């Protein structure tokens, strides 16, 4: 891990060299950031854990495994999330068919009732299983939902400001992202309300490389208005493992696919 930290420092210092090839098209930067953050490889798997801390410092934990498959690069995707912790959500599973041309299809499986519950489409900027992350943070927000403006290019970052095309469907008035010029990973996102005040911040704390792909391994979201934060860590990350399409169906909600959920040997 430390070796990677040093490498990323070196990479950051090299970014000055890359400055000659700076991009100037905001839509292209956003498109490349979207690919870097959500579309690495044709598929991927990761174990994730979150610590949810409220304003009083009380903590809750969640642990789950995510499987992802890209139907089309930059396009439709499928996600399967299976929870292992805490004990009252163990076996709960979440299936997403993410679409670029219409609302996502989402299902939640509640093992106690053997119930496959479908979740309505609007419900995406609300808490993901009690965390400060939203459902949309987990599967990605459509770039076409916002208009993008490049406001600054620094040595290390493209700084962009984004405004929602339909303000009624979101809680923010705008957000600003710092996109790493080398990796195209959004390293910091600040959300502002209509008064222009920052109330929510997402930060990348650590990036590592897996199979040549720079990957966020630790991130944090902070509720600056109400206090509290959620820390998220990713481990046992693999890309291009060949997860078949039929893993992302109702079958996997009831019978989680052990072959793909089992932790790979490191």
């Amino acid at each position, binding site marked *: 891990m430390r070796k990677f930290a040093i490498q990323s420092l070196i990479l950051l210092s090299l970014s000055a060299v890359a400055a000659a090839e700076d991009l100037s098209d905001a839509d292209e930067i956003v498109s490349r950031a979207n690919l870097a953050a959500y579309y690495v490889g044709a598929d991927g798997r990761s174990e994730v854990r979150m*610590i949810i801390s409220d304003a009083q410092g009380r903590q809750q934990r969640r642990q789950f495994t995510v499987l992802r498959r890209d139907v089309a690069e930059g396009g439709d995707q499928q996600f399967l999330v299976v929870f292992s912790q805490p004990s009252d959500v163990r076996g709960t599973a979440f299936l997403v068919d993410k679409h670029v041309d219409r609302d996502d299809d989402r299902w939640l499986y509640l093992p106690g009732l053997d119930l496959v519950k479908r979740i309505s489409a609007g419900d995406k900027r609300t808490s993901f299983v009690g965390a*400060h992350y939203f459902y949309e943070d987990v599967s990605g927000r459509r770039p076409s939902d916002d208009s993008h403006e490049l406001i600054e290019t620094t040595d290390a970052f493209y700084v962009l400001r984004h405004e929602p095309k339909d303000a009624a469907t979101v809680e923010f008035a705008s957000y600003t992202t710092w996109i790493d010029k080398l990796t195209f990973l959004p390293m910091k996102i600040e959300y502002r309300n209509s008064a222009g005040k920052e109330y929510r911040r997402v930060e990348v704390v650590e990036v590592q490389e897996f199979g040549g792909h720079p990957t966020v391994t630790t991130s944090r979201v902070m509720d600056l208005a109400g206090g509290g934060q959620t820390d998220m860590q990713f481990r046992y990350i693999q890309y291009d493992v060949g997860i078949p399409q039929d893993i992302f169906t109702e079958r996997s909600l009831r*019978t989680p696919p052990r072959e793909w959920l089992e932790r790979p040997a490191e």
Partner: protein
Amino acid sequence: MKHLLPALFLCLLLPAGLFAQEDPWGEDDWDDEEQESRWSGFVEGGFGTRFSADPLIDNPHTLEEIRWRLESEWQPGRYTFGFKADAAYDGIEGQWTGEVRDLTLAFTAGASTDLKIGRQVQTWGTGDLVFLNDLFPKDFVSFFAGRDDEYLKAPGNAIRISKYAPAVNIDFSWTPVFEPDIYLTGERFSFFSPIAGGNVAPDPPLSAIEPEKSLSNGEFALRLFRNVEGREYALYAYNGFFKQPRALTEDLEPTFAAMTSLGASLRRPAGPGLLNSEVSYYASRDDRGGSDPLIPNDQFRFLAGYEWEARPNFTVGLQYYLEWTLDYDVLIDNSPFPQYEADEFRHLLTNRLTYRAGRDRYTWSLFTFYSPSDQDFYLRPIFTYRHSDQWSVYAGANLFGGNKPDTFFSQLQDASNAYLRVRYNY
């Protein structure tokens, strides 16, 4: 000088080292899943009491229990053994009770077939607390007493075979010995009896006569389903019995009438929300013409619902449900109690309002059943507070009312109750 280089390195590593100290996760926590099996569950205390006395039942309380849940899963090779059981001291019944909710062996046969054998909870269909083609057993006593929603679904001993294919998925469930609903017996809640012309609470509690345990009296349930571009289509078939003791034997004892059903459902996104629709036809095999007053008639059931997020964290669900009793004139002509027969068309409207706050720490929910034809209602407010991953508190009420003594919710007026449950998850 020779210490300078390591010192420089230390400076570089300092931020990472600081973070490591802040890291609230022990590095070992990732190893949790390496264990092949683990035990978990909860301990829960629950207390509920009536708003007003039921003259037929001495106990003013509707829930008095300490419940201990133990569950685990064991996965040797390609097999999965599941176990989930409750032990509870029930103050209403004045005794310890035990219930195995899951005791199953599950495995995959071939690439596309899953089997699950043993005691299990099963659910399908699109209704929200309204069931048409889901003819798996339900526990209405737990539901009305304010136990967790999970207990509405009762376990059954079954073999479930699921076959998945691109054209159509098939679920087949065989319950060799009929598993009825947990129905009203008069022990905790009194119920309406047409013979008495009012509510009764028999002692000993009502115990309906169950079908003989023979191979042909098992329950067969089938679902064919497919998801096409987010539209979920399903066809259903069932062969077994009405799940409630709505029939009478020749000795006028309650029993379960033979029933076969066919149905279909659709669930799809529409506008900002989700639309669901479901139909079913219940064929009462021993009274197809409807002339036997001891046996329920055929019924056609219809459901349409819509759910959407009206505001962030505020979800609204609306359903319309119809029970159409067929051969109704014949039923009334032959009934000894025509005044107490259900209406030919029983209309039911439901409304679910859910508001979540504090990142799901607090949940306010109100489920309303209202029947304009029966002129009765059932309100089900629940407040849930999740204090931590271990502690949760549930406070709620079950409020019944109506204008006639014999309708489904109206008969439960004296069962109206409020309850509190505290749960510790381990």
